[in-house]
């Protein structure tokens, strides 16, 4: 049984039909990436899974539980953490307070300490800056903080929305390396990226979205060879 199973998912923003029947599966332990142009529905798919928007039709099943009507704050508790697009850290809270908000659903102080150590091992920079206000961090550090904050809940499934957006090339490489590391530690990842090349390189499988529909899917290394993908998303002629 897949960890996440999405069937015929339809989501609307007002009158805009953003998702038009998405089918998608993520197996435990995988990195799956969603690629596609702006407005294809990648972020909306993540937002529907994490409960920020409600689907009009279809099913989202996680670990055998139907998520359609579960409020966002309870979905976190079920094991899904969503890192939204655009480094939305709490700028007026310290780095430490940001991380503690990530662990909001956990009451066991020992588990929180364990998760904190893990995050600090992954991002030593955050440990150095733990008493600084989030707003004083650099762009790359803020991105580390959004990911670290999500990991504080120790999710089974991590939803990442454009983690490389607006970062310098060297930092992009570091972020993708970190994603692979997180996955190696046992966390399943659903990754949305504009940077299709880098995403396909670390992913096991990929789905290509166009205007709210899945138009192509398969193992990432196969899609990387696919002519349509190479032309449309990898910038080749």
């Amino acid at each position: 049984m897949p960890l996440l199973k999405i069937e015929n998912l339809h989501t609307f923003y007002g009158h805009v039909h953003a998702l038009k029947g998405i089918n998608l599966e993520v197996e435990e332990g995988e990195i799956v990436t969603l690629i596609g142009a702006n407005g294809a529905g990648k972020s909306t798919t993540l937002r529907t899974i994490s409960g920020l928007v409600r689907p009009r039709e279809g099913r989202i099943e996680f670990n055998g539980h139907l998520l359609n009507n579960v409020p966002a704050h309870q979905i976190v508790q079920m094991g899904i953490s969503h890192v939204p697009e655009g480094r939305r850290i709490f700028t007026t809270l310290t780095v430490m307070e940001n991380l503690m908000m990530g662990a909001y659903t956990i009451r066991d102080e020992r588990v929180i300490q364990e998760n904190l150590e893990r995050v600090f091992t992954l991002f030593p920079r955050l440990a150095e800056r733990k008493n600084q206000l989030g707003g004083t961090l650099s762009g790359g550090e803020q991105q580390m903080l959004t990911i670290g904050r999500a990991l504080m809940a120790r999710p089974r499934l991590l939803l990442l929305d454009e983690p490389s957006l607006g970062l310098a090339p060297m930092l992009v490489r570091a972020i993708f390396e970190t994603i692979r590391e997180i996955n190696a530690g046992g966390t399943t990842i659903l990754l949305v990226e504009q940077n299709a090349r880098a995403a396909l390189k670390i992913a096991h499988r990929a789905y290509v979205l166009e205007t709210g529909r899945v138009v192509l899917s398969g193992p990432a290394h196969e899609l990387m060879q696919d002519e349509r993908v190479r032309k449309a998303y990898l910038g080749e002629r």
Partner: protein
Amino acid sequence: MQFLQQTINGITIGSFYALVALGYTMVYGVLKMINFAHGGMFMWGAYIGLTVTTGLVALVGYASPWALVPTLIAVMVAVAGIGVLVERVAYRPLRTAGRLAPLISALGMAFILESLARNVYGASWKTYLPGLVPGGRVALLGNVRISVMQVLVLLVSFLLMALLYLFVYRTRVGTAMRAVAQDHEVSRLMGIDVDRIIATVFLIGPGLGGMAGLIVGTYYGSFDFTLGWSFGLRAFIAAILGGIGNIPGAMLGGMLLGIVETFAAGYISPQWKDVIAYVILIFILIFRPTGLLGERVAEKL
């Protein structure tokens, strides 16, 4: 000497403003909305306090300042209840309706709370029973004196403000409150039940406001149903002055407004105190439009 005396009086009145201003600023923090019904809730604190003390005195047979202790608790619980109820029926259904609808709803609740008070208690001035207020004065330096009531008022106000500060800046739920003030959506992604945090704010803000109502009622001795507007608006101005959305700002703004008003009345003219006080405040806002401690809000708007 007169300066010290005026300052003490100013701080006393300032602490009333601060307690009420905290309610405006906390609600603005999490909802970006001015809760115009807050003055009404504060006024209900004075009325409920009146009922409870009258009942207690009838029960015991004599009036003692000790009656204020259970009254304070009863008022806090009752007004916090009003706050949560108002949020549930008048604000939560309008959560996604933009900014204007909740504002109108708040004004409506303000009128409802005021009319209810007038209909239940009548339009005449109400007076707390004599004997409830501790008498006596303590000499400070030379001929500067502070009444026992003032000492108590200041102690209670500062204790409440210190507790609130510790709650908001040192606890898990308080931190979540600051997180919600910044970003509802990301707060939900952290597993924070945003509606519950907002309800908590409507428990604390009106709770403090209700206590302030009781304290103001007993300090001045008498009041009527216009207390909510007259006093509530001043506290609202104090919140703006300190930087709305900022908790230390509300405390500072309240103190400053109280002191400026008292100085204007004491040194210049009691008839002109409002004119002078508000001209000064307008000047402060010209140079610091976001209020004294309001940078964070400016960043967001």
